[in-house]
């Protein structure tokens, strides 16, 4: 499990792309979120950024746990968003719309990652 998997099929390439996307989106959250936390602001972003990056890396390594880590972060974002702005539609928009669209993509990668894991285990078994 120490390395990255090699995408072969289109679905695997797409999964890789989603994983990279998570890392891309997680990095600014982590970096700017760390400064925000240091300035006394919300801790959500640095934590969410770390979780999303970790999820992306795990997915690149072919682990379905990465997808579940993202989905967990997404799920916990809801109560956080409602706690911060209540049921204010404009307020919820930046907090939930984008992450939810990404969550859909991440859900789609789960079967691919499951299959990759099986293959990987099978290969290890053979070796």
């Amino acid at each position, binding site marked *: 499990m120490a*390395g990255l998997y090699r995408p072969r099929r289109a679905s695997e390439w797409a999964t890789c792309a989603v994983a*990279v996307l998570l890392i891309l989106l997680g990095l*600014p959250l982590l970096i700017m979120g760390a400064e925000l936390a240091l300035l006394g602001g919300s801790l959500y972003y640095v934590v969410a950024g770390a979780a999303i990056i970790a999820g992306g890396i795990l997915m690149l390594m072919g682990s379905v746990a990465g997808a579940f880590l993202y989905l967990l972060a997404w799920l916990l974002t809801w109560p956080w968003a409602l706690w911060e702005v209540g049921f204010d539609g404009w307020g919820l928009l*930046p907090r939930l719309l984008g992450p939810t669209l990404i969550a859909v993509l991440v859900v789609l990668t789960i079967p691919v990652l499951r299959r990759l894991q099986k293959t990987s285990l099978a290969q290890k078994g053979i070796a």
Partner: protein
Amino acid sequence: MPRTDLSAATALCGLVLLSATAGIAPARAQSAYKEAPPGPGDADAPGKKPSDKFAGPSPFAPQAPGVNAANIPDGPPAGPGEATPAVEQIGSHPAHDDWPAYGRDTDATRFSPLEQITPRNVGQLTRAFVYHTGSKPAPGQVNKWAAETTPIKVGDGLYMCSAMNDIVKLDPATGKEVWRHEAGVKYASIPYTAACKAVVYYTSSTVPEGEPCHNRILEGTLDMRLIEVDADTGKLCEGFGYHGQVNLMKGMGESVPGFVSMTAPPPIVNGAIVVNHEVLDGQRRWAPSGVIRGYDAETGKFLWAWDVNRPDQHGEPAEGQHYSRGTPNSWATMTGDNALGLVYVPTGNSAADYYSAMRSPEENKVSSAIVALDVKTGSPRWVFQTVHKDVWDYDIGSQPTMIDFPGQDGPVPALVVPTKRGQTFVLDRRDGKPILPVEDRPAPLATDVQGDPRSPTQPWSVGMPRLGLPDLKESDMWGMSPIDQLFCRLKFRRAKYEGEFTAPSVEKPWIEYPGYNGGSDWGSMAYDPKTGVLIANWNVTPMYDQLVTRKKADALGLMPIDDPNFKPGGGGAEGNGAMADTPYGIVVSPFWNQYTHMMCNKPPYGMITAIDMHTRKVLWQHPLGSARANGPWGVPTYLPLTIGTPNNGGPVITAGGVVFVAATTDNMLHAFDAKSGKELWNDVLPGGGQATPMTYEYKGRQYVAIMAGGHHFMMAPVSDALVVYALPDGK
């Protein structure tokens, strides 16, 4: 197996990762965007001494050619005088069908008794005609246009000025041009904005009816002239000033075109034209004077001056002298009170808006205030200040409205004063005392600006509903996604913010909120005296500002307009300013994400409110303006969502029960039910509707007119179209 073959995946994914890291960099680096404050700890520049290339001209230097735009011979300095006795003007008692003054009447109610258009039929409005003023940027010219014009209608004429001060008379039914007076204003004379809010209708007391210039149209120009023309022919009135014109640059001392200008209609009170003018913000501490002057409406003769730092001298300055420099200027439309013999002057700030250490005690008493001047002498009778020691550009932009305040012991002559703070003050016109309670509340004192302490308290009008939202919080920051929202949260935390009166700061940016375009800017309010309903549209637009050292200001290329190296269109009143002659320059930007051009705070950015003045309760209030012409990166979304956009331009209320307001950045004219606030109708204009609409009746038909001139600063498309609506024939 996966270990051995990293090439494809890693190369691909790694490349994207790299570029992502690079993509974050601009968000953290100092932006090259000219309107972004330099950021924490970056208000100074390394290395060289401040530039001494430009030492600033002496205020005694003669005015350069072109500053006296019409080359009008001045003659010797005039002493104080008295106005020719005036006859009653139509603005005081407008005919039912007319809209004879900028605010419809001298009270500035923006209320029309017309009732042909009602909530039931307003949906059928169609365009009766579109008139083109011909004034818009020529190819290659920096766009500085925002006409802001409200036509007036008297009898058989619709009179208006173009953004560049040409005066026209139109047929009220067809929009056909009856006459045009070309003012000959040059591009260089445009200050911050080419605007002309309205012309003034004047009936002479000395020229008999039927002779030329019995009825006259008066305007003040961008290049500081008063012009009077005959209302029937548009020909200059020879008996007024020098062949129909008065040079308002007389006595102003050193200046350049565009530094000082008139954009608001000067009121005529008991025969005296009262003249104020805009002095371009942010240029230098010793900018030309904000003096207020009176001139005889009949002859154009100088009557008096109110010059803040020469309070006892009401005549023109002696030869080689000039009015006191850097004093608070008044650029808003003033309101005249014939009965009390007063003019209510909404003042702004002393020159160099964001630094107050060099202001005189006299200036500190009258800045960002309403000053009631006696129109016979030019002496202040009372002063009411809305911000003490203003360093936030909270000058008063709106025209105050005169109402009979429904008091317990009968009506009280009152003045309703809208402000950019969203505080609405209601004053007794006789003595300036607040009718509704005003509380002095503690204001933040912390500042890193040496020797420039802030006022410990500021006035709050607690008896009127606040036209504003609560102080900003980090969680109010907005965006399309968590990332741009986080960018704004970070911007919020990197700045100094202690509420509405957060003192200016050098060490890091500070947030100015509601902002200098917040609350009521120049739009003013509408008041139905029959129902006691007050209509106000207002803004929620925080700003992100930072003081910078002189060295840094030089490094940023900030220079005053009278610097030989100044580039026209490079700096403006509402942007960065050199504030020459002071230790600091100012960098000002909207509190936005400078990459997406979306505001950092969540919507709404503009609202409309109806207040019952009998109870001071809000009757209705909702966001004003849709998202259709707005969106990230300035790309229109075409979403019909009412998001509440920034808006500039006032409302109109009619006896028919309809409120008309354009103003918003969705470039639409809106009609609301005055009772419920429900939007009944709207129409997309050919340009931004940043002007106050007006309504009139002609030959039995009611019309609604709006100048769709747009606004360069609000990024609303510029046009030269006056759009006039009416119900279809026979309705």
